């Protein structure tokens, strides 16, 4: 018995010693990771480096003549951002534009999706027709809108004239803003419709039948069954449209250029103007970073909403 005890004691330390001497190995990237590495590095290069450049430019005065030169400007550009009334108004207009366009698109898109969903015949044809505006390039929508609203030869102007309105759509601050808003709504409502319709097709028919058997009417069915069922999908549409609306540029630039009296000059238009008309890249960098921050905050908010719905992953 004593010998057995001595043997056990002898084995223990030896095993411990071997365990403590083991070399720790870090896990190497697997095959998939190694194959993805070049692409990820390229993506990092085209994302992080420009971002860093923009940050540097936001603290600089950028000179183009004789080659690109950066002259340190401290916080001048940032100070100007917070003291520029034009910028404040541009963001106010952006907020208004955002609410009107995204709100309009969500409401109209959802209504159209429900109508299509209840359509028994010709759904595909109707859907194809409704989706057409979405496939038109935004710059073309702007040019088309400009022609249609032209006071000399525009169709819309002529129609409105027949109805008794003789003002110029793009000459008045209110009607100009409404016009560019409606152009955006016209173009992107089909996207919301498409997304919402995809959600509607996944609503279980058995639940609808049960509701019908229990005597629920159309409105109650929509309110208590259909809309809650597609709410997560609508959030996705809201996220997509929100990102675009905050940065939208094409239609406004091609129709009004930000006028009249800056009535349609949103932050994105002002950013373009600052960078590519005034060539004030330092202040443009600040404006761009602010826009990035705003869109990031909005995106994070919607992603958190989606996460609560269990759809983030």
């Amino acid at each position, binding site marked *: 018995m004593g010998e057995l005890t001595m043997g056990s004691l002898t084995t223990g330390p030896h095993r411990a010693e071997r365990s403590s001497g083991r070399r720790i190995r870090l896990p190497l990237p697997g095959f998939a990771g190694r194959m993805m590495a070049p692409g990820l590095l390229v993506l990092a290069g085209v994302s992080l480096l420009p971002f860093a450049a923009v940050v540097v430019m936001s603290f600089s005065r950028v000179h183009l003549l004789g*080659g690109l030169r950066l002259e340190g400007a401290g916080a001048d550009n940032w100070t100007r951002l917070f003291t520029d009334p034009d910028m404040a108004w541009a963001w106010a207009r952006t907020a208004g534009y955002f609410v009107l366009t995204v709100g309009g698109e969500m409401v109209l898109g959802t209504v159209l999706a429900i109508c299509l969903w209840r359509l028994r015949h010709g759904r595909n044809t109707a859907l194809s027709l409704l989706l057409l505006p979405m496939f038109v390039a935004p710059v073309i929508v702007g040019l088309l809108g400009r022609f249609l609203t032209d006071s*000399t*030869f525009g169709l819309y102007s002529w129609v409105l004239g027949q109805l008794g309105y*003789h003002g110029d759509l*793009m*000459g008045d601050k209110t009607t100009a803003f409404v016009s560019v808003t409606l152009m955006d709504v016209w173009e992107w409502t089909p996207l919301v419709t498409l997304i919402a319709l995809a959600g509607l097709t996944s609503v279980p028919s058995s639940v609808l039948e049960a509701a019908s058997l229990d005597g629920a009417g159309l409105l109650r069915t929509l309110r208590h069954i259909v809309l809650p069922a597609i709410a997560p999908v609508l959030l996705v549409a809201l996220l997509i449209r929100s990102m675009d609306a905050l940065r939208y540029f094409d239609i406004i630039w091609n129709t009004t250029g930000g*006028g009249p009296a800056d009535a349609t000059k949103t932050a994105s238009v002002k950013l373009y*103007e600052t960078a590519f008309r005034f*060539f004030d890249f330092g202040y443009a960098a600040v404006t761009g970073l602010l826009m990035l921050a705003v869109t990031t905050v909005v995106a994070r908010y919607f992603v958190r909403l989606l996460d609560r719905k269990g759809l983030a992953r």
Partner: protein
Amino acid sequence: MGSPPPSSAPRPSPPLSRRSVLRGAAAGGAMGLLAGCGGRSDAAFHPDAGPWRRYAGTTVNFISENTAPTAAIAADLRPFTELTGIRVNIVTLELSALAQKVALDLASGNGEYDVVYADPYQVLAPYAPAFADLREFTEDPGLPRLPGGLDDFIGTHLDAAGRFGGDGKVLALPYDCPTMVWQYRADLFKRYRDRMADDLGFDPMPSDNTTWEQYYAIARWFNDETDEVRYGTGHQAKQHDALMCDFSNLLWSYGGDYFDGGRRVGRIGTLDPGPCRLDSDAAIAGAEFYQRLLKIADPGSRTWDWDGLGAAFRAGRIAMCPNWHEYAASNKAAMPGKVGYARLLKGPVRSAGMYGGTGIAVSKVIPERRRRAAWLFVNWATTPKTQLANLASKVGGGTPTRTSVYAMPRVTAAQHRPSKMANMLSADAVKKTWRSDTIGLRPKIPMWAECDTAVYTQLSGMLAGDASPESAMRAATSRIDRIVARGG
């Protein structure tokens, strides 16, 4: 007999592996990329050839706005290529896009563009040091002589479009010269002349003595007394550079200006124009009249740039308008024989018509021999022969910038109907406008693009009823002063 020794077979080479192929392709791609990052090569050179042929085989890149002479030249480059052996690539863009391209080209130092349509306010003023002094070429005996010399160009054009800063350098040769003139329905004025004279108390026919107040009265008369047109006058009053151009005519006629010494600032240009003077009594008076005029103008004016205004005029909406004279060809096509042209109206101080001309310049970023090759194109593109060909071109047009062209019998004859060169119908009006005392020159300063935006934004607000003329002018002054203080 012994057996022959065994021959050794050649060892087979290993097959080309995919890895080797990829390595080779990567190396080739890298070398190509490095080569692409470098600038363009210098021009070909043949020292024993004649002056026009010494750079045969070279390619010259010309970047230009979509403008009449460029359209005409682009349609027929063969004469130049046959003369010089030089191939020309022409890139045409909208002006703001051109300014972007040029700015980035100068910043990168690549020298992609040899010849630049150097708008005085968006290109020449901000980037003057980047353009060659053309006197180097005009004085070089090894290069072709500039026909007529620099003195053949209209003096105000050469200064406004070709010089900056008062150092005497000639950075561009005048290439086009749109100028704002009074365009009116001559048929209507003739038909209603007597009635208008009786009602208004003066002869309505355009003359050098017609005033802006009379223009206003004529416009109201057409509004109230006839259905031939919907409105008497229309304007390019969209929130756009066009609005600044339209307003400036009145500003100058009332004795106002953007800066002290505004005529010199506009004609020669400067880096530091000093305090803005839009808050002067004269400027405010001009703004007050402009607001009053726009109240009786076609409401569409606030959505029109110069193209929109031109279309409205040709559609018969308005009886008259201030606009660029180069719409004469379009007017002739739409309303043959019905449109007349006159110098813009007199204000309390003078008459002034906005000059919108531009010169073509040689980039200094490019190698020396390419600069000389580019000069051959600049020389040729502005010769009397080429300007005459442009004037008669079916696809282009433009208006000559050389005095000798206006003296040609063919051109002189074209100034009267029937005319085969429609733009010449406005020649009398524009020639009067180009004199030193009547030409309208906006400030030629590096920061003008931003100042311009400040001006037309405030004016647009004024026209929308957001601000009085005085407050609009004071606000514009304040903004311009801040912009100038920041520097170009």
